[in-house]
C-alpha cells in the first residue's frame, strides 16, 4: 500500500502528535512495536523525547534494535525525530557513555552552556530556529528538505546535539548563540531531524510530506 508509515512505539513519549501529523500529510500510519512489521516496513519513523540511555534500553527491552538495523539495510526511508535522530548515531555522552544504533557515524554531546564570547546560553534550547544548508550540502534535492526554502524556521527542544563524523552527512544546521548545531542529518535512506516537524507548522508538514514521497 502506498504511503504507509510505520511509527515505532517503544513506550517513550507522546506519539499522538507525530501520528496525527503524518496522517494529516496523507500517510496511513501504523503505530507498531512488532519486530516483523518494523523490519519489513515501507517507511519507518523513530520518534522520541527524554533521555538517550532510557530510550536505548526501551528499544532493547522491546527487541527492536535488530529489526531497525534490518530495515536500515534495505535502504528504505527511515526518519528519526528529536531523540530518535540522536539514537541513530554511535553514542551519547548523556549520563556517561551510552551506545546508540550506530546507523550514522557520530556522537551526541551536550549543547555548550556558553558562547565563544562567554555569554550564557539558555539550556534546553527551546524555540524556533532558521534552517541553513550545511557547507558540504548546499543542495537539498532528493532529501526531506527538497521543498523547504533556506532560512525557514522549525521548532526545537533539546539539551544535547548530534555531531556527525563526516560533515557531508549534515544537511542543515541552526545557529544557537554562535554555536552551529546539526538540524538534519542524512546518510543514504536514513534521515534524522533534531527539531519536531510535527510541531513546526506548515514548514514541518512540508518536510513530513516530502519524507512520505521519497
Amino acid at each position, binding site marked *: 500500500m502506498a504511503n504507509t508509515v510505520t511509527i515505532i512505539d517503544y513506550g517513550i*513519549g*507522546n506519539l*499522538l*502528535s507525530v501520528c*496525527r*501529523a503524518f496522517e*494529516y500529510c496523507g500517510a496511513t500510519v501504523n503505530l507498531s512495536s512488532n519486530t516483523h512489521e518494523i523490519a519489513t516496513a515501507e517507511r519507518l519513523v523513530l520518534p522520541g*523525547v*527524554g*533521555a538517550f540511555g532510557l530510550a536505548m534500553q526501551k528499544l532493547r527491552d522491546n527487541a527492536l534494535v535488530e529489526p531497525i538495523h534490518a530495515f536500515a539495510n534495505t535502504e528504505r526511508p527511515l526518519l528519526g525525530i528529536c531523540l530518535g535522530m540522536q539514537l541513530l548515531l554511535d553514542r551519547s555522552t548523556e549520563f556517561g557513555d551510552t551506545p546508540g544504533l550506530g546507523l550514522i557515524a557520530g556522537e551526541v554531546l551536550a549543547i555548550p*552552556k556558553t558562547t565563544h564570547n562567554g555569554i*550564557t*546560553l*539558555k*539550556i*534546553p*534550547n*527551546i*524555540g*524556533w*530556529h532558521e534552517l541553513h544548508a550545511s557547507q558540504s550540502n548546499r543542495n537539498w534535492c532528493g532529501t526531506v528538505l527538497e521543498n523547504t*526554502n533556506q*532560512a*525557514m*524556521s522549525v*521548532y526545537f*527542544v*533539546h*539539551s544535547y546535539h548530534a555531531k556527525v563524523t563526516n560533515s557531508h552527512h549534515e544537511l542543515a544546521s541552526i545557529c*544557537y*548563540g554562535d554555536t552551529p548545531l546539526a538540524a538534519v542529518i542524512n546518510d543514504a535512506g536514513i534521515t534524522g531531524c533534531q527539531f*519536531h516537524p*510535527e*510541531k*513546526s*507548522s*506548515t*514548514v*514541518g*508538514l*512540508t518536510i513530513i510530506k516530502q519524507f512520505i514521497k521519497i
Partner: protein
Amino acid sequence: MTNIRLIARLDIKGPNLIKGVQLEGLRIIGDPNAFAMRYYQEGADELLYMDSVASLYGRNNLSDVVRYTAQNIFIPFTVGGGIRNVGDVDTLLRAGADKVAINTAAIQRPMLITDVAKHFGSQCMVLSIEAKHKGNGHWEAYSDNGREPSHKDVVHWAKQGESLGAGEIVLTSVDCDGMRKGFNTELIHAVSSAVTIPVIASGGFGELKHLSDAVFKGNADAVAIATALHYQQVSFNDMRHYATTHNITVRQPS
C-alpha cells in the same frame, strides 16, 4: 540572540475561553478551539492553555481542548491548571500536550517537579509562577490562581524550581495581568537573570512597545499574550513587524 517566542495564552473555564483582570473577574470570550485555530493560522509560535479554576476543584477540565489542538494544530502547546501528580501529567501528554505548567501542586510538594522531570524530561516540566509584588523589589509566589500566598520568594522559588528539574518558567505578574499597561519588567529581569532556563513573561501586554520592554528590560525569552489578542487589539503580524523593525528576532512564518 535566539528568536523570541510569541505565545498566545488561553485561559479556560469549563467549555469557554475566559479572561479576567489580575486573575479575577473572569469574563467569557468565546470558543477556545476557534481562537486557538485563529492564532495557529496567524503564526503563533506556541499556545499556552491555563485551566484557571482547576486547582480549586482539584482537577483539570482541558481534555476536550487538548484533544482538538492535538488533532488540528501543529505547533507546541502547554497545558496548566489543576495538575497534581505524575499520573495527571501522563494523561495530558498522552492526550497530545507537549508540556505541562504546574504551580499549586509544585508549591505544596516541590519534589513533584523532579518526579515529572524524571518521568517525562525537563523539557515538558514548566514551572508556573504567579507573582505579587510585596515592595522593595520582592515578589511572593501565589497559588490557586493568585488566591493563596505561599510565603515563597519568587526569585528564590524560581532558582529552586530550576535545580529541581524545571525546564522552563512561565512567570505571571498577578498585579499586571489583564491591565494592558505593560509587563512587570523588574520582576521578569529578576527571575530571568537568576536562572539559566527560558522564562516566559505573562501578564500586562497592551501595546507593541511592551514587547521591547519584556525583551530588553526584562530579558524575557518568550512573551505570553491573552487580552490584547482576544480583543484583536494586536495581531501576530503586528508583533512580527514591530519586532523586525525594533531589533528583536522572531520566527518568520513561511
